[in-house]
């Protein structure tokens, strides 16, 4: 898709748009050819207004009123409601996404590429997004939707293509595929036989036992990256238990950092073990140092407390063993972390955090942006960790994942936390309050 948007140039072959060969050697050329792209990580200037972001890169004079009118007109036409004069930093994620789409449409895009558009949205918000996408399609535009969620593809697409290991393995109208056949083609045939031991361990019944390993009593957490403070949080996680947290807009982020010992609570008593692993949501920003090699990234564990000499040869040996046992695909441990795929990066983070057999593991959206094979892998690892007596607490923006992986589910809403039944609908309703539609941010 980055080739289609001119960000990377293709090595071989020809690109045709509407049957005519197209020369897409830069994003500029791609936009000229009528292609618009909404990246998974938004490409917006937060300090500028909506209108300014739309006009960014244009030529000539910038006329705020004229541009605002144009955006309003586009909004009316497509149903993408946006205030043209709002500052981007004040928009919700859903709002920023609408802006990205408007931006592409304002440049007369006929073909819209959306990279994992639902990844950052709450369930109700993504529902709304897909309705909007349908409207765009009905107005004669084409949409390419990249998603790792099979349901989304099955529900909203007309045709579906599956890429695996750099090859096109399936390309059919949606009416001719089933969820099973999609999953099969994404995973390939070797999927179940790959690591039977891991699979077996993962399905074994676990025993949760004894006193809680993590215990929060009346804890209050100050807002740093979450949208609001949390107050009077009570929470227990026992050894061998997997507890999931559901929250909107990263409301759990600061709480998890407190539990992982990375921040201090502002009130209350938080009992967490000294030996705790932490898998942050943004692995490239918070967990790994891209320019560092694999073994250096592994050496980051507890480096804050280390003194004296770095025993590099021991560290490299341990790293070698670790990448083997976690099946991290890399030529050597000298490979830099940034060249690894997302799934391998996440496995590296998990391998590091589990390397000293921690008493507890805290994970934030542990499978965010991963394909389903990597996702299954991470899930199996977490289950094995729990089986070995680790208390696992994770946050996920994916309700399916909570239902799948967790033994118990907690929901954060309005600055408080509640345990709910492990059923997708119950969790969804608890997240959005009694009337889900009123919660949709516009």
């Amino acid at each position, binding site marked *: 898709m980055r080739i289609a948007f001119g*960000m990377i140039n293709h090595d071989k072959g020809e690109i045709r748009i509407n049957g005519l060969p197209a020369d897409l050697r830069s*994003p500029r050329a791609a936009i000229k050819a009528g292609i618009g792209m909404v990246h998974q990580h938004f490409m917006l200037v937060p300090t500028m207004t909506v209108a300014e972001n739309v006009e960014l890169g244009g030529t000539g004079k910038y006329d705020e009123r004229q541009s605002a009118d144009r955006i309003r007109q586009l909004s009316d036409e497509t149903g993408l409601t946006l205030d043209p004069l709002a500052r981007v930093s004040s928009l919700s994620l859903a709002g920023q996404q609408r802006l990205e789409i408007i931006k592409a449409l304002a440049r007369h895009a006929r073909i819209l590429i959306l990279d994992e558009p639902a990844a950052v949205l709450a369930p109700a918000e993504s529902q709304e997004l897909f309705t909007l996408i349908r409207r765009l399609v009905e107005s004669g535009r084409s949409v390419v939707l990249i998603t790792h969620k099979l349901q989304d593809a099955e529900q909203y697409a007309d045709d579906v293509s599956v890429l695996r290991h750099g090859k096109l393995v399936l390309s059919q109208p949606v009416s001719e595929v089933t969820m099973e056949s999609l999953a099969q083609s994404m995973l390939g045939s070797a999927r179940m036989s790959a690591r039977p031991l891991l699979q077996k361990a993962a399905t074994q019944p676990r025993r949760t036992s004894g006193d809680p390993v993590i215990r929060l009593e009346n804890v209050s957490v100050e807002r740093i990256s979450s949208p609001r403070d949390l107050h009077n949080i009570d929470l227990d996680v026992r050894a061998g238990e997997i507890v999931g947290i559901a929250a909107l807009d990263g409301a759990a982020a600061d709480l998890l950092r407190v539990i992982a010992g990375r921040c201090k609570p502002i009130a209350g008593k938080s009992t967490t073990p000294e030996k705790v692993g932490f898998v942050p949501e943004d692995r*490239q920003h*918070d967990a790994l140092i891209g320019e560092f090699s694999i073994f250096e990234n592994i050496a*980051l564990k507890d480096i*804050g*407390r280390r003194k004296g*000499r770095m025993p590099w040869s021991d560290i490299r040996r341990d790293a070698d063993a670790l990448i083997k046992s976690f099946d991290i695909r890399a030529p050597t441990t000298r490979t830099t972390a940034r*060249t690894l795929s997302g799934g391998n990066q996440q496995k590296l983070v998990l391998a590091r955090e589990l390397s000293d057999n921690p008493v507890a593991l805290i994970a934030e959206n542990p499978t965010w942006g991963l394909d389903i094979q990597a996702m299954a892998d991470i899930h199996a690892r977490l289950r094995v960790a729990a089986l070995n007596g680790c208390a696992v607490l994770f946050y996920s923006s994916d309700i399916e994942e909570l239902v799948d992986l967790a033994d118990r589910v907690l929901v954060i809403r309005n600055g408080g936390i509640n345990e709910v039944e492990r059923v997708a609908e119950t969790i969804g309703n608890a997240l959005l309050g009694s009337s889900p539609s009123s919660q949709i941010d516009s």
Partner: protein
Amino acid sequence: MSELAVLALVGDMLVRATPLILTGLAVAFAFQAGILNIGAEGQLLIGATCSAAITLQFGETLGGSIIIVSLIGGSLAGAGWAAIAAELRARFHVLEVISTIMLNFIALYIVSFLVRGPLQEPTHIYPQTETMPLYARLPTILPGTRLHAGFVLAVLAGVTGWWILQHSAAGFRLRAAGKNSSAARIAGQIDVGRTTRNVFLMSGALAGLAGAVEIHGVTFALYENLSPGYGYTAIAVALLASLNPLLVIVTGLFFGVLEAGANALQRDAGIPSTIASVIEALIILAVLAVESIRNLHAPQPGSPSDTPIADLT
């Protein structure tokens, strides 16, 4: 050129390289930790000033051991000067690029004032301090040249610095904090603020040491044009060495050869010594060009947000 003259020239080159290596290390360490300390010049001047003041004040009572006291004093003074920028950065998020460059000017004018005021030589004719007594000078290590023991100190500092960066936990913390402070804090549980501050002070100390070594090894007095911009050339020295302390020794020597050689050329052949500056600048441009070409061909990074996109028109 006679053999003796060649020997003297080689000595001059190494003498010239000494402050470049020390300040180059100061810059390399700071840059490795993500601190853009371009104030090595000011830290060097303050180090030199303090060192001169200490020697003039206590030289007679302490005798030969004054050199050690004064070198330590000069380093501490450099660190103290850097501490101003470090505190401004830690407390008020003042960009160190701005604060250190401003502090360079302040340091220059402090020297200017002192050599015309409190520290001026007794006759009050020349804008400089009294000349150091012989016992307060660094010993010459190569007879027939001006090469002093400070050069050995610089090389030792380079080797030690390399060991710290590559083989110690503190050095690893420093590099981690410089490459990705967020991951350093969250994954490594590093106190990034403290690490940064310590590195900043150490960087200042190295530059201050360079100043003190100049006083005791080369100039034997404090005056305004003590440094022909060592602290600025240091940035080129460090960048050319890709911030590796061992390579800083090499690039420091290279620039030392270039500058001392240019002076000799001007003296003996009438070729303007500014040629050396032109060559230095060309080298830096070439290094930058090579670097950016290498980046162009680097493998695509994992995240789309890392990918630079051409402006969209």
